[in-house]
């Protein structure tokens, strides 16, 4: 009886997993097919050819090398500044009696919960006004500003749980707030920072809406919007489009594999409790 149930479980879960992974497997298979093969046998058929040319095509002629560089230029500073500023705010709000600290925290979190649509028009005009429209700087600032509320909220929740005695010891040693922040609290906050860092990287890297709101020129577009451009450029050249999608997924997959545990605990933040 129990043996049968185990078998049924694995059969069910296995089928589900195969179904779930099938689209990904198919993209990988399409990305290594030649155009002639796809054209003659159709997208849904098994590969009759093997070539890595679609990757070269997407990377060079498709402009993905430049887009990938743009993405990293946006994503790395965004993660750094967003987490740095949030950590500083969270530190002050969680460890000291800042006046109105609860209100400040809620206003910040509220800003992050707003539907971004209400910000799109004013933010693009603001960027124009400041002369940074269509630059990666604008995208970084917007991404940092919009993420701050959530990161601050999560980090202060985490920092609150650090016992006061640890900080007290540093105070006795004569450490000021900056020292305490950098050499006591921040190192203890590492797990939360790793989780949020992995999430922030994925969110920023995968973003489409903010990029196409503050950017216009093709040459400054990060990978996600560039993929859409690739699709327009290579209409029905599915092997190149597939290769482009594979390339665009590599950095986030790498971050996911490296920070798997943190990534998943990051996603679950807020669900428990």
């Amino acid at each position, binding site marked *: 009886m129990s043996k049968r149930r185990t078998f049924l479980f694995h059969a069910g879960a296995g089928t589900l997993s195969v179904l*779930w992974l099938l689209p990904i497997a198919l993209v990988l298979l399409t990305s290594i097919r030649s155009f002639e093969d796809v054209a003659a046998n159709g997208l849904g058929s098994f590969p009759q050819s093997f070539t890595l040319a679609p990757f070269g095509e997407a990377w060079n002629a498709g402009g993905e090398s430049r887009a990938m560089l743009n993405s990293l230029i946006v994503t790395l500073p965004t993660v750094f500044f967003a987490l740095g500023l949030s950590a500083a705010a969270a530190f002050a709000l969680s460890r000291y*009696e800042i006046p109105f600290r609860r209100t400040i*925290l809620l206003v910040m979190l509220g800003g992050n919960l707003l539907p971004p649509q209400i*910000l799109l028009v004013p933010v693009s005009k603001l960027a124009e006004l400041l002369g940074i429209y269509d630059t990666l700087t604008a995208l970084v600032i917007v991404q940092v500003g919009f993420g701050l509320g959530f990161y601050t909220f999560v980090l202060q929740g985490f920092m609150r749980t650090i016992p006061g005695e640890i900080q007290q010891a540093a105070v006795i040693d004569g450490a000021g707030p900056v020292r305490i922040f950098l050499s006591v609290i921040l190192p203890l906050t590492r797990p939360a920072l790793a989780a949020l860092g992995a999430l922030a990287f994925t969110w920023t890297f995968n973003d489409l809406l903010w990029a196409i709101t503050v950017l216009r020129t093709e040459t400054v577009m990060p*990978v*996600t919007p560039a993929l859409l451009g690739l699709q327009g450029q290579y209409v029905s050249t599915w092997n190149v489009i597939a290769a482009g*999608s594979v390339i665009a997924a590599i950095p986030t997959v790498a971050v996911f594999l490296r920070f798997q545990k943190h990534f*998943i605990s990051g996603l679950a933040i807020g669900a428990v*409790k």
Partner: protein
Amino acid sequence: MTALATPVRAGTNAAPARAKKRKGLPPVLLAFVLVPLLVEGFWVLWPALQGFYLSLTSWDGVSAPEWTGFGNYAEMFGDPTFRTAALNTLIWLVLFGGLSAVGGLGLAMFLQRERRGVGFYRAALFTPVVFSLVATSLIWQGLYQPDGLINKLLGALGLESWQHAWLADSNTALYAVLVPALWRQLGYVMVLYLAGLKGIDPALYEAAKLDGVTRWQQFRYVTWPQLRGVNSVILSVIVIDSLRSFDVVWAMTKGGPYHSSELLSTYMYATAFQSLRLGYASALAVVIFVLAFGVIVTYLVRAFKEDTV
């Protein structure tokens, strides 16, 4: 040492502050709060207020905005595209939200017990979360092509009459776009529910077993009530995600054909940045905000309560 430590234990959380308070806060701490607050205020809160203001104007983005009061909102009543987009957004809320919640809970319960292989199954269902919605859309666009896998499979099953240009048909476009969105969201909701299920005290199930309850009763009287907190978080996440949904639709159909897969978010974007009707677009954004408002407030009240405890 002991004397110093006492006030720390008396005050629970921000204890070190108590001693500091009398001396006043070091200015550097104010900077720690004010700099992030100003960044967010300038780039998020202030633009949001402007958004509300712009919704009461007619604006092409070049000449000065012209005050029109509630003209934009009145226009919506006669705008068939708005009606389609609003209806589709509701369908999206119910189907995308409902199915990902029910499916996510089902998957989490199915894969809850730690046993051999379960890690792989979870990871498989979870993998799509890592991809961008645009990459996801391209993957599924390939599947939906006339010569793509879905039509091939239907052909192999003898269902040739079902074969279809899924994204080009206004009867199926919205649902065809919904599937990839669900493919990605289900794993995410599953992770949230897995975290919630893990938090339930096993003693409760032991007690229930001693009472000889059925599986359904176990779910009804132990699991479900214990998931209350998680459910409210997931509900918020789902509603906010539904209203924000943009990438999948934009990448796959741009709201077409004939606005059949239009959501309020895509319609808002197109109105703003393609038709350059910035006032009307802002009014559409306000509608999205109003739909999300209840959820935002509930979420903040929850966060507020947790913060006081």
